[in-house]
Structure formats: structure tokens, C-alpha cells
């Protein structure tokens, strides 16, 4: 077991709901203001296209997923790629919806 020196943060990459913008903005705050150099944003577009630095980021570091809406597309992308996130953040607005929807 290795000491973690960097954490990847993957915010919802969507564009249809305001909460996806909230997820992105929160990620900028974490990676640029709160934990610069210790966190890095996962770029879903680059990851899907197999950019080696992006693939290495999620393979070698724990990832926090910020799901933007109840579709949970952030979590789903990791499922498609057969990766497990270290943790998932679900906004309060979404988490208060009925469990069947969430």
C-alpha cells in the first residue's frame, strides 16, 4: 500500500443541468484554491479518448467523483471503464430525492 500523493477529482462533465456547472466550479475551487498540486481534475473527454496522462491519472490515484444530477453519469463513466472511484459526492439537492430516483 502506497501513500497517496495526489487525488483525482472528476466532476460531472454534462451541460444540460445547472448542477453540472456547479460540479465543475466546485472542482476548480478544490484544485486551484484549496488543494493545488495535491489534486488534479479528470478530463472526461481526454480520458475517453485514451490520452495516456489522463488514463494514468485515474489508474494510479484515488478519484473523487462529483455527480451532477440523478443520472449519476460521472459514476457511470467509471463503471464503463471498469474503474472504481474512491468516493462519490452527491449534491444535497439530488441526495434529497427519493432513493429510487437517486
Amino acid at each position: 500500500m502506497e501513500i497517496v500523493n495526489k487525488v483525482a477529482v472528476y466532476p460531472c462533465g454534462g451541460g444540460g443541468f445547472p448542477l453540472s456547472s456547479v460540479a465543475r466550479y466546485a472542482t476548480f475551487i478544490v484544485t486551484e484554491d484549496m488543494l493545488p498540486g495535491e489534486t488534479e481534475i479528470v478530463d472526461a473527454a481526454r480520458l475517453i479518448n485514451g490520452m495516456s496522462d489522463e488514463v494514468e491519472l485515474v489508474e494510479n490515484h484515488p478519484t473523487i467523483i462529483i455527480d451532477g444530477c440523478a443520472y449519476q453519469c460521472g459514476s457511470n463513466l467509471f463503471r464503463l471503464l471498469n474503474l472504481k472511484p474512491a468516493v462519490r459526492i452527491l449534491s444535497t439537492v439530488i441526495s434529497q430525492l427519493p432513493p429510487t430516483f437517486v
Partner: protein
Amino acid sequence: MVERVCIYPCGGIKKTEATVARIAAYLVNEDLLPGQTMILCVPAFLRGVEEDLVMLEDYPTVVIDCHSENCATNLLYLSGVTPAARIFIPEVAEHFNISYESERRELKPGAQQLAQAVADETARVAGAMLNNKAYSYEKQQIKTKTYLAQANLPVDPFDYQKIKPGIYRPRNMPDFFPEGSDD
């Protein structure tokens, strides 16, 4: 002539141009061509959300690539769908001589100007598809390829033809600008 056009802005986050692409798509969808355009949400598309699958299959798609990595173009390639046109942000910036800041969280004035220019070019292309009676679009079927994140993509999967600075069309897709127009 088509009823609506799908806009697919680069879904990235690491580059300023990715934010420019997203803001440009909102400008087209909300201000320039409201009710005539739709924005593709890539995570929803990958999850199989019906409306995102339908908009990609049934309507022509204008992709907005923010960088030569061509992530937007390549996602469509991985999906087995050919875009109707492509807007390439670096060329739009060069053509209109726009220099912009590196801030990506919120766009500064230069990048905001670039977003407007990209939106204008995107609306010009989408508007041609919407208004040119000679333009036709054949529905496509998504055939997702199975090698997500495998980095074995061709350099130019659609054999793009340059139409104007920053505006491209796949070789086997129909012209959208009316014949004889200034565009």
C-alpha cells in the same frame, strides 16, 4: 433543410478552450438559435439517456473541437456517428485575431470574445443547415465501439475538408452552405 441541429461542444475541463466551447454552445442554444438547436450532454449520452441518443442519431451534429487532440470529433468516431460539421476553436481565434487569457473557471474578456466568435460561426453553420432547402440529413445509427480510453484512434477519422477558417466538413457529408452564397 432540417428542423433542428445538435451542438456538441468539447466536454473537457482542463483547457480554457473547453470552457469557451461550452459557453459558445450555450450562446447558440439560448440566444442565437433557440428552439432550433440542442446541446449534446456527453456523460448522459454515454449512460444511454434516450434524448441524447436521439439527438445524435436523428439530427446533424456540429462538433466544437477546442484543441488538436480532437476529443469531440473522436467521441463521435467512437460512437459510429459522422458529424455534419466541425468548428475548430484555435483557427477561429487566429482568423479573428483574438488573444485570450488562460483562466478557465470563468472566462475573462478575451476568452468571452472568443466564445462569442465561436458561437457566431457555429450558428452560421447550423443556420445554413436549418435554412438551406437543398440540405438534407440522413439519420444515422449509433454503433458504439468498444475501446474507450484505449488511445488507438486515427488522426483524422472523418477526412475533414476545410470550408472556411475554423469550419470543416467530413468528406462524405453534404454541403450546408447554399450554392453560390457568400459563405
